[in-house]
């Protein structure tokens, strides 16, 4: 299942995310500090990184679309308020955590969705419940499956 550049990596509510956009994001990551630690693009781990990055981009698009419906003028909380520690990062998962780090829109959505809930744990749970069906509607192209989807050939080498 080799991804081609003529097929979208993902389609988010009808809007395509093209492979070249993922390429560009990966190039920026490789050029940044610590970029030399990223896996070789031709390896299974490299393909997994591509899938991981696609998920992050997909999440950012979802957040932008959702934030468009929010009242303007209210800035989102800082990332440390949303993900204060490792337990929070574990609960949210690394891709959601990475997307929230980059996306102020995402943090605004988080604050809005979680506003009715007390405590970090309940807030995160509510946010994930909000996110899950929206993620489920995203179409992922071949080679761009969720990294942990056991049906794709580069999934963790054991279940």
């Amino acid at each position, binding site marked *: 299942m080799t991804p081609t550049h003529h097929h979208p990596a993902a389609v988010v509510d009808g809007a395509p995310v093209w492979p070249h956009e993922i390429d560009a994001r990966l190039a920026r*990551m490789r050029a940044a500090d*610590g970029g*030399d*630690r*990223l*896996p070789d693009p031709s*390896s*299974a*781990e490299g393909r*997994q*990184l591509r899938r*991981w*990055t696609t998920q*992050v981009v997909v999440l950012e698009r979802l957040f932008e679309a959702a934030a468009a419906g929010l009242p303007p003028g209210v800035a989102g909380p800082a*990332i*440390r308020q949303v*993900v204060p520690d*490792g*337990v929070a*990062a*574990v*609960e949210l*998962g*690394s*891709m959601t*955590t*990475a*997307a*929230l*780090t*980059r996306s102020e829109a995402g943090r605004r959505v988080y604050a809005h969705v979680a506003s009715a809930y007390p*405590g970090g*744990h*309940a807030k995160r749970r509510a946010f*994930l419940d909000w996110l*899950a*069906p929206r*993620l*489920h509607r995203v179409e992922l192209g071949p080679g761009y499956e*969720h*990294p*942990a*989807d*056991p*049906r*794709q*050939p*580069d999934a*963790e*080498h*054991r*279940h």
Partner: protein
Amino acid sequence: MNVESTELFAGTEDDPLQIVRVTGAPPGEVTVRGPGVATAFTRGDEVAVRTSHPAGARVPLEVLVNGAPTGGTGELVVAEPGWTVHMIPHFHYDPVWWNTQAAYTSEWDRTDEPGSPRLDFQRAGFDLVRAHLAAAEHDPDYRFVLAEVDYLKPYWDTFPEDRATIRDLLRRDRLEIVGGTWNEPNGNLTSAELTARNVVYGTGFQRDIMGADPATAWQLDVFGHDPQFPGMMADAGLTSSSWARGPFHQWGPMLTRIGSWDDPPTDPDGMQFPSEFEWLSPSGRGVLTAYMTNHYSAGWWMDYAPTLEAACDAVYRIFLQLKQVAATKHVLLPVGADYSPPNRWVTRIHRDWPTRYVWPRLQCSLPKDFFAAVRATPGFSPSPQTRDMNPVYTGKDVSYIDTKQAHRAAELLTQDAEQWATFAGLLGAPYPETVLDVAWRQLVYGAHHDAITGTESDQVYLDLLAGWREAHTLAGAVHDGALQHIADRVDGGGRSVTVFNPSAWPRTDLVDVATPGVRPVDDGGVPLPCLSYPGGVRFLARDVPSLGYRTWRLVPGDADRWTAAAGTEIANEHHVVSVDPDRGGAIDRIHSVAEGRDLLAPGRVANELVVYDEYVEQPVFKEGPWHLLPNGRVAGSAAAPAGSVLRETSPLGERLTVTGTVGPAAYTQQITLWHGVDRVDCTTHLDRWDGTDQLLRVRFPLPVGGGRPVYEVGDAVIGRGFGFPDVDTAEHPWTLDNPAYTWFGAGSTARIRVTDPSTGRRTLHAVGVADVVVPALDDAAPLARDLLIALARVGVTATTSVAAGARYGLLAVDSNLPDFRIAVGGPSSNPFTAAVLDAAPSYFRELLTGQHLVWVPAARPLREVWTPTGDLTGVRDLPVLIVAGGLSDLVADCADAVIDVVQPTTDAGLEDRTVALLNRGIPGCCVDVDGTLHLSLLRSCTGWPSGVWIDPPRRTTPDGTGFQLQHWTHTFEYALVTGAGDWRDNDLVRRGHAFNHPLRAVTTDGAGDLPAVASLLSVEPPGAAVVTAVKPTGNPLATGRIPGPRSTVTVRLYEPNGRAADVTLGRPMSRTDLLEGPGVPVPVLRLRGAEIATVTVDLGGPIVPAPVGDDVVSDARSWLTNRGVPAGGALPFSVHLDDAGTATVTSDLVEDTITATVALGETTHTVTVPPLGAATVPGPALAVRATVPGLGTVTDVRTGQPAFEVDLDTDDIVVPAGGTATLDVRVLPATDLPFGVELQPLGPPEIWAWTTIVAGTVVIRPPAHQRPGTWWLLVKALGGGTPVYSPTVRITVT
């Protein structure tokens, strides 16, 4: 319109209402009706019905809307209420694999900002434990398990504030600790004794220190299991086990597919037995076992479900599949994957589901509840299974072969060292308890299924190598010190050599004396024949007593040397061997003097090196080093002439040395026949190896007519099936190589002896692996249990299957194949028996009218059906022993490994003899259908994670390749043994043991007071039991106690031949269990065949442990430098600095209060720490050092230590044997680390003995007798919380 008959029930337990789902009906109130079926209510598309029909009945239904028929029809399949799905949250943890110990334990989460771009959708141990504890704190329905001590102890020590929470969760049954072992070891690649230590350390921490009650062995991901494993777990007090690999390939019978990744899991209809069964060892003991039919992650993937409803539906669908093989109405669903956080839906399913359905129950549960429910099921009698749970991942037996050789050498040296140190302790020497404890712990750590299996990345390989080297070095020092202590006490009557025998029977064998210029003499003063080598002399030491020694006087003199002679043939009183210079120097004749025959297949050669090209990764599964991947291209050394052939003689024996090349290998092979030794000793040196994705085997075509493969495993011997070494794994993925312990061969472990009543003629049929077919599942335990145990005792493992069920013997699904069947019950009670008799000539049915036992040969010879497409499920594919009555007589008849059947026979049958190869740390092997023995020597893998490096800069071997390619000089040692009779007649267990436990010699002035000859412990009768451990009784360092003086010695031993034996040790003894709890006095140890027993004896003493000096310094966070185990081993106390610089001293002692001196910054404090308690010392400080007298010192530093590099002053060293070279180790910049830097020299095991680091300099001093070769060395520096590796230096010895 669609009508689905579900297995869901609404209503109540007393009045369950089965749900029929009707979709696509016209609008209105939908009901269904049929004969005896009425609708109780409808909600949405669910119609709840009441019926009086029994489960399984099929009833036609019509669909009505608003009371009127729609014309729509369907069918109700009446389901069974009363099922429960036990959803058990867990996470699978590997302390090392492709990533490092540091990353997996805590550092994987240490990023500069949340969500940095690393592949961390899994989390490290610390954050996982915290997350699962938090889930339990927030959610009263969350229950979960924790297992591996490799993260449990670091977490327990680093976060003592969570100990109360953990204990509270244990008390309230919210948390269960499982495993009972320290990690998940691949016991089939180590000694059984090491597995015993694994459970000693595991239960010691989980029970004694944590206060938990581990009852379930948790071996989720282990690549196959050793047959004696369940019995040993029972002996340690565990009562159950659960795991995911063994009887089937890859990920189990529901997920192994060829060619299609998109298919969902299939039904488990290839399973021959229920998922819950009694797993029994050859010893006859075992545990109730739950096999994870759909892998250990079966219940995890619904985490990605978008809604609660979808998650519930996913669990329900898995339930429908798993229930098909459940033994009771309880299904175990593991909800976790590798390093997985708490599952998002599991407790919401637990709460929501009962609001809609009364059955099945979906409950967040624990293994103890699951197993209790299974056991409480009325009439539950688990199906007995002794099936060999191998082979899984055959590459694991060969990858990183140097680590397997190193592990074997280290674990046996540690066993012997412990034994001699115990005897020295009885003579008053301080017992090095903590030193041996470090060695055992490093071995336990290395036994993990991603360590010893060779599946690790390059950096992890180096880290693990350091652990094996440390174990070997520590054990060697203890070993040599103990022998010296005893030898110095011996009265040798002057300068003498004392030869020690580590085995529990008298031995005659060669021994090396590392003292040049001397010769041993006999009682008459006549010098014995001996052979000189640079640095020492070798001679044949006769009659060295059991676990004892014999002393020979020494006189000055030069021994003889090897002398070149003409010819290509060598001989001793047992064998004649010749080699063919035109065929690579391979062996072209092996003659057995005792048997009066040549053993080689006509026209074939033996000891040929064969290079197999391999795929980079498994073509379908895309996996590398754990699969053997030959692609069909083969090249053998016999295809070209040898470079040279040299014959040499000496007073001790004769040898041949041949050289040559084949593919990427340049080899030197030596074959030696020693006078007085019944063995053909073989050594293969690879002077050069630069293979890439290639496997090297050596093979011996020594067919035994009718013979079957026989393998020694841990503390037992079993039969196995033939392998397919030459296949192209793209077409036929399973080579059926298997791991052996010290030997494997061809012959028989048990046989059917058919006697013709009219002629008296007897023929023998070897059997090794059985498919025992009972009429129905309810018959399995009552009919088969005793038979299975009796068969396993004599080496025949078996699967109990049922007549109407799947047949054992389909290679596409089963990990191994049977070679015969036993049909229990005559044709009127067992449909399988009837089917066999229907298909066989009628003559066999007639035979059955007159006798109980009939042997129905297969329709074709085994070699015709035993093919890589292996389907042996046909009723006539394998021989069948029909047992129509007299089952208890058959069980009794198994005891001598010969099952007698009286009936006419004309078959040729078995040649009653055996050929076998002994190995030193080379476990991978197989026997093919032609009877050729194949021994895998090494392989080079480039498949992931070969070449992976975690903390740059990456290091490689001097030629720039990864370490998994093994490009350096290697030495492999193995030996051929042959003889009439079976493996017991040939005493193979003792000979394999002796091949791996050499006699040792110590030269002294002989001025002591002990007798010149003595046995320190004897097993009577000799050879009736093999001793695997002699140690002071008890395991204080494993159980949170301070070692004290001991007045008894523990001896662990096992019966090696599968026959009952009464054994004494010459002293009063008590029988205890594997954990050395309170014992019961026994005058005689009555061992059943293959039984493993632990006893305590009073040998004098007391044995006093050596205290730990303050200078034994452990890093509290030793995992940060991937050290495996802290320098001090058990770490009974620890100290940690938090981010504020406050120090907390923690205790893992269960009864002792300790006083620690704590140096924190510029100040020193004294704190008292109660048992299992903690005490704080306020900072702030960047470094802390805590010392407890007698228990050593522990240090910790805050993060943010300066980075440094390690460099060596050259990259190429050439040194002659007997010479010296040095390397300066430069640490740059000169660091200001609070506790300095620990430097470890790393290189292949061949160089360990002659490379050390002294005061920052690497000293390379190969002894004069070191063979030339090329290796490598690098230095690992541990300090400041990160590991640093120097560049690699090429080492060439000339």
